[in-house]
C-alpha cells in the first residue's frame, strides 16, 4: 500500500494542498488533471525528489518521508523517459542493478526476463538515441523495474507518442501490470487514457484533489463542477427498465425514451452521453431509425465557437453541442422541433 498523507508543497506561486491518496498493493492508480495541476509534483514527492512543507509518504507500511530517493525502492519513469544517452539499451536497464551488488548472473537473468516481458530483446545492443518513442518507453520501464521497486511511477508515459502507438501501448502497459502485479501510479492529462486504464483515479485541479474513484464513479457521479466540466459534462440518463432484444442488443427505457444498446450483462441503471455525441438536424435523417428521436429546442446558449442546445425528448432533456456554422445554416429557433441521433458507440453504461 502506498499512502500520501496530508501532502502540501509550495513552489513559487504554485501550491499543492493537503493531498491524501491510498493506493492498494498491486493497484493501478491514475492521477488525471489538466497541465499545471501539480501531477508531476505528487510523483516527485513520492519518489523523494521534491521537498515539501508538510505531509507523509508511506510505502508498504513504512514511513519513508525522510528517506532519500535511493533508499525508497521506487521505479520512476519521467516524462520523455530520460534514458541515459551515454549508455546503450542493455546498460540503461542494468544501471540500477549494478548498484545493488547482486552477482552478475542474477543481474543478467533479471535483465533478460524484463527484456522478454517488455518485448525489447532485439534492442539490447542498440544506442538509445536511435529508438522510437514506444521503444524508449519500454526501455525506461524496464530500467525502472529492474531494481524490483515497490511502486512504479509513470509520468505522462504516452505524452510523446503518436495516437496509434499510444493506443497500442496502453494495452501493453496493462499487460505488464497484470503480469508483474506491481503497484503503479500513472499520471496523465488524457481522460480517455485514464478511463481505459485506471482501476481508480484521482482528478487533480490547481493543486487539489477534486475527486477520487473508479472511472465509472467519476463519470457518472462527478462531485464538483470542475470534474463534470473536465469529463465533458455528459448527459446522465436514469433508466427505468431494460428489455433484451436478442441479436446482442438490448433496449433501455430512460424517462420514457427507448435507447438501443449492445447487450450489457447487468441491468442498466444509468446512461451517459457527451453533448458532442448528440447529433441535431432539422430534416428527417435517412437510414434506419435506431436511437433517433424528435425533440423540442428549449434553450440555446453560445459557448465559445459552439452552440449548446437543451432539447426536450419525452420526459428527459438532453444537452447537445453543435459548431456555430452548422447551427446558423440550420437556422434553429427556440420551440422548434428537431431530429436527434444518439451516437451509439459513445454511450456509457453504469
Amino acid at each position, binding site marked *: 500500500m502506498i499512502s500520501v498523507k496530508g501532502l502540501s508543497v509550495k513552489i513559487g506561486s504554485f501550491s499543492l494542498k493537503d493531498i491524501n491518496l491510498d493506493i492498494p498493493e498491486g493497484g493501478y492508480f491514475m492521477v488525471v488533471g489538466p497541465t499545471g495541476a501539480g501531477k508531476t509534483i505528487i510523483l516527485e514527492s513520492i519518489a523523494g525528489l521534491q521537498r515539501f512543507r508538510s505531509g507523509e509518504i508511506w510505502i508498504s507500511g513504512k514511513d519513508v518521508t525522510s528517506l532519500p530517493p*535511493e533508499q525508497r525502492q521506487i521505479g520512476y519513469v519521467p516524462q520523455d523517459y*530520460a534514458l*541515459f544517452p*551515454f549508455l546503450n539499451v542493455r546498460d540503461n536497464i542494468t544501471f*540500477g542493478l549494478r*548498484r545493488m551488488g547482486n552477482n552478475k548472473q542474477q543481474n543478467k537473468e533479471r535483465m533478460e526476463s524484463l527484456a522478454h516481458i517488455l518485448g525489447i530483446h532485439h534492442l539490447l545492443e542498440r544506442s538509445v538515441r536511435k529508438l522510437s518513442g514506444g521503444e524508449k518507453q519500454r526501455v525506461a520501464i524496464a530500467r525502472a523495474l529492474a531494481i524490483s521497486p515497490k511502486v512504479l511511477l509513470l509520468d505522462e508515459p504516452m505524452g510523446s507518442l503518436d495516437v496509434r502507438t499510444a493506443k497500442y501501448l496502453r494495452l501493453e502497459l496493462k499487460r505488464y501490470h497484470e503480469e508483474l502485479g506491481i503497484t503503479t501510479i500513472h499520471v496523465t492529462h488524457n481522460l480517455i487514457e485514464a478511463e481505459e486504464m485506471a482501476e481508480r483515479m484521482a482528478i487533480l485541479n490547481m493543486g487539489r484533489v477534486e475527486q477520487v474513484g473508479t472511472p465509472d464513479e467519476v463519470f457518472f457521479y462527478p462531485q464538483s463542477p470542475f470534474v463534470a466540466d473536465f469529463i465533458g459534462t455528459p448527459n446522465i440518463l436514469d433508466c427505468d427498465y431494460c428489455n433484451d432484444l436478442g441479436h446482442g442488443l438490448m433496449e433501455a427505457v430512460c424517462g420514457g425514451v427507448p435507447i438501443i444498446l449492445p447487450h450489457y450483462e447487468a441491468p442498466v441503471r444509468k446512461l451517459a452521453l457527451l453533448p458532442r455525441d448528440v447529433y441535431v438536424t432539422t430534416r428527417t435523417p435517412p437510414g434506419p431509425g435506431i436511437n433517433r428521436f424528435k425533440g423540442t429546442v428549449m434553450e440555446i446558449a453560445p459557448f465559445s465557437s459552439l452552440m449548446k442546445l437543451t432539447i426536450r425528448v419525452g420526459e428527459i432533456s438532453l444537452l447537445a453541442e453543435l459548431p456555430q456554422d452548422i447551427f446558423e445554416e440550420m437556422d434553429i429557433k427556440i420551440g422548434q422541433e428537431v431530429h436527434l441521433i444518439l451516437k451509439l458507440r459513445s454511450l456509457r453504461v453504469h
Partner: protein
Amino acid sequence: MNRKKTHLIQGERPFKIVTYGALALIVSFFVIILISLAAYTDTRTLFSVLVSREILFAVRLTIFTATAATILAMIIAIPAAYAISHAKFPGKDVVDTILDVPIVLSPVAIGAALLVFFNTSVGSAVENGLMRFVFEVPGIILAQFTVVIALAIRLLKSTFDGIDQRYEQVGRTLGYSKSQVFLRVTLPLAKNGVIAAGVLTWARAIGEFGATVTLAGATKMKTETLPVAIFLNLATAEVEKAVAVIFILVAVAAGALIILRKVTGQRRFE
C-alpha cells in the same frame, strides 16, 4: 501580395551586401596577416629558430604551466560551476558577477592585483613560508590560473545548465547517492562540455601574457613563456624568432579549435 513580396526581396539586397561585405572584409584581413607572417620568414630560418634552446625552453615551460593551471582550474571549476548552476540562494547574482570579473578585467590588472597582494603581510607570509610566486614559475601558473578559472567556470556552468535534471533524478531512484549520481550520470552527460571547457581553458592559458608578465616578470630562460618570448624578441628586434613563436601559437589555437569542433559535433558553431 505578389508585389509586396518582390519588393521585400529587392529590399534585402543592400542588407546582404553590407553583412556579407563585413564578413569578407574580416576574413581577408586575417588571411592577409597570416600571409604576411609567412612572407617574412623562410622555412629554414623558421626551423632553426624553433629548435633553438630558448624557444624549446619556452615551449616546454608554456605547456607545463598552462597544463598545471588548467588542471587546477578544472578541479575547482567543475564543482563550483555545478554549484552555481544548481543552487538557489540569496545573493547568487552577486556571486555570479564576482565570477565574471576576471573575464572582463584586463589581465595586466589581475597580475598587478596579485603582485600587490604578495606585498601585504598575508601575501609575504605565503611567499616566505609556503612558496615563492613573484618573478618565479609558480607565479606563472597562479597568474594563468587566475585569468582562466572564471572562463572555465562560465563554460562549465553552461554545460551543467544544459543537463536535464531528470537524468540525475532517475539516477537517484535507481539507488545512487547524490555524489555517485554526479560521477556516474552528470559527468558522463557533461563529458563533451568538460572536454571543450578544458581545451579552451588550456588554449587561453597558453596565450596568457598580461598577468604572467606582471606577476612573474619577463626573464629570459626563466619565466619566458611563448607570449613572453614574442615580447622579448620583438623588444630586441629579433623578429624571426618572434614570428616563429607566433606560428607555434597559431598552430596551438588551430589545434584547440579542431578538437573543439570534434567534441561539440560542430553544433556549437552553427
